[in-house]
């Protein structure tokens, strides 16, 4: 009985693994197939070609889109991590009047759906003449983000207080205590924040749709959508181009995931357990 259960478990896991991985493999293999064979279900292309990659490169400024995305993503992730950590430290370490109320306000902003502020925020960037540039995609992160502040504060609250008090007696100022002692201790949470925001910024479509006009400023997801509109829906269908571009878009995220796997999974597990 017990053995049967174990065999069943492993069989189910095997089937599910195939179901979860197969779409990737199929997409990857389709990107090496000529146009007429894209939809056949062979995993090893009958005719193996690299033309699609060459064509995508010629049709779309993919390299430029990658540079744009990388710029936005790095700026977004770094700024949000630094400022969120600062704010989280402010809430975690100091006792001051109104702390509870302010933190409650911060939590409340997490419940506000993005669509409510979307239009006025657009109008702010519009009045600053920034629509059409990459700035609106990351600059808001200079002010931190409620979710990460919450995440990092939880982590800071779990640290013992003694090393900070000791440093204070030794004459270290608040900034030094934060940057030299607190931040290094908080490295796992900092890495989680960086990875989460990197992923969010890399995969975002809505903001690039709102703010970017010219294809030279596109990020990769925005460009991919433009390619789909052009080659998927517009007249002649060239799925092989769209699929190849999808592969190219996905690969950086997969690489990032394998580099930061441990932190990613641990971070997600901890964010969820706070019910």
């Amino acid at each position, binding site marked *: 009985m017990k053995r049967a259960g174990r065999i069943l478990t492993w069989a189910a896991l095997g089937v599910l*693994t195939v179901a*979860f991985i197969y779409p990737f493999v199929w997409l990857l293999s389709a990107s090496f197939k000529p146009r007429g064979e894209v939809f056949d279900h062979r995993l090893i292309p009958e005719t193996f070609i690299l033309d699609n990659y060459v064509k995508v490169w010629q049709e779309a400024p993919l390299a430029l889109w990658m540079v744009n995305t990388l710029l936005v993503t790095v700026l977004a992730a770094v700024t949000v991590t630094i400022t969120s950590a600062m704010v989280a*430290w402010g809430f975690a370490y100091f006792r*001051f009047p109104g702390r509870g109320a302010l933190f409650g306000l911060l939590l409340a902003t997490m419940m506000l759906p993005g669509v409510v502020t979307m239009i006025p925020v657009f109008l702010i960037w519009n009045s600053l003449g920034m629509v059409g540039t990459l700035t609106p995609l990351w600059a808001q992160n200079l002010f931190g983000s409620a979710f990460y502040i919450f995440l990092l504060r939880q982590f800071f609250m779990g640290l013992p207080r003694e090393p900070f008090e000791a440093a204070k007696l030794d004459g270290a100022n608040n900034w030094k205590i934060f940057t030299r002692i607190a931040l290094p201790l908080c490295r796992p949470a900092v890495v989680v924040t960086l990875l989460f925001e990197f992923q969010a910024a890399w995969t975002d479509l809505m903001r690039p*749709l709102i703010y970017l006009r010219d294809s030279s400023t596109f990020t990769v997801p925005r460009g991919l959508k433009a390619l789909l*509109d052009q080659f998927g829906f517009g007249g002649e269908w060239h799925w092989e181009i769209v699929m190849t571009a999808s592969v190219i878009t996905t690969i950086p995220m*997969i690489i990032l995931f394998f580099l930061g796997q441990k932190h990613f999974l641990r971070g997600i597990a901890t964010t*969820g*357990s706070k*019910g």
Partner: protein
Amino acid sequence: MSFRRTMRWKDTRAALLFISPWIIGFLIFTAWPVINSAYLSLTDYDVINDPSFVGLDNYRALFEDPKVGLALRNTALFTVMSVPAHLVVSLALALLLNSATKATGFFRTVFFLPKMTPPVAIGILLLMLFNGQSGLINGFLGLFGIDGPAWTTDPDWVKPGLVLMSLWTVGSSVVILLAALRGVPQELYDSALVDGAGWWRRTLRITVPMISPTLFFLFIVDTIAALQSFTEAYTAFFGSGNTTYSNDAALFYAIYLFQQAFEFLHMGYASALAWLLFIVIMAITGVQILVTRRYVHYEGGKP
């Protein structure tokens, strides 16, 4: 006494310095937009001309706009289908992973991987996999002699297709649930085993109640996310040049709002749409909290 007061003031000043980025950001990017959005919802505004005050006209128009009703129905249907499906599938996967003590790390990675695929690419993948004539899903169904539906063009099958595709990304819920499962004390199972309780009984009587706070958390978060779904459906069924598909079946509320605001430049009307969504989300979340509260078990009493 005065020394103490200066100390406290010094602390307050330092704290305010540390949290000042958030305070400034809150004022500029949350407080002001909320006020402005409420005001705009009472105006006609196309970005080019100044807003003109129209009172509650936008809100009245909401109730007469057939597309609002359509978008609300679509979104509700998608939410009602996808949220329970997500919870059941991710719980099943987490339980499976938890019972296979070896190689959990490997499978956890496998199930999480699709979460790293950009939603735009998932929208594209949806069009390929669920293609009525030559897609992989119908090819698979064909193996069993089933003639699959035209998922991406038949209005009745567009939402089920979107729901199925969304199941591919349950990975983060699985990881969260797995962490919760690890926290259930082994003694509970041991004593249940002594009492002769079978797998089902143990799962229903011990596991599910013990991880109910996490299930509850996922239930709420998933619902809010489903009510705001945008990218996958927009990628696959909307955008310039796309006229082949039965878009109406995939017109989610967030998509309609986006179109009104940024394609038709009806900023006032779109703001009213945003407030209606906000109210709907608050109401649903409130009901969910009230209804499920008695089923959620917190160790050490209610928080």
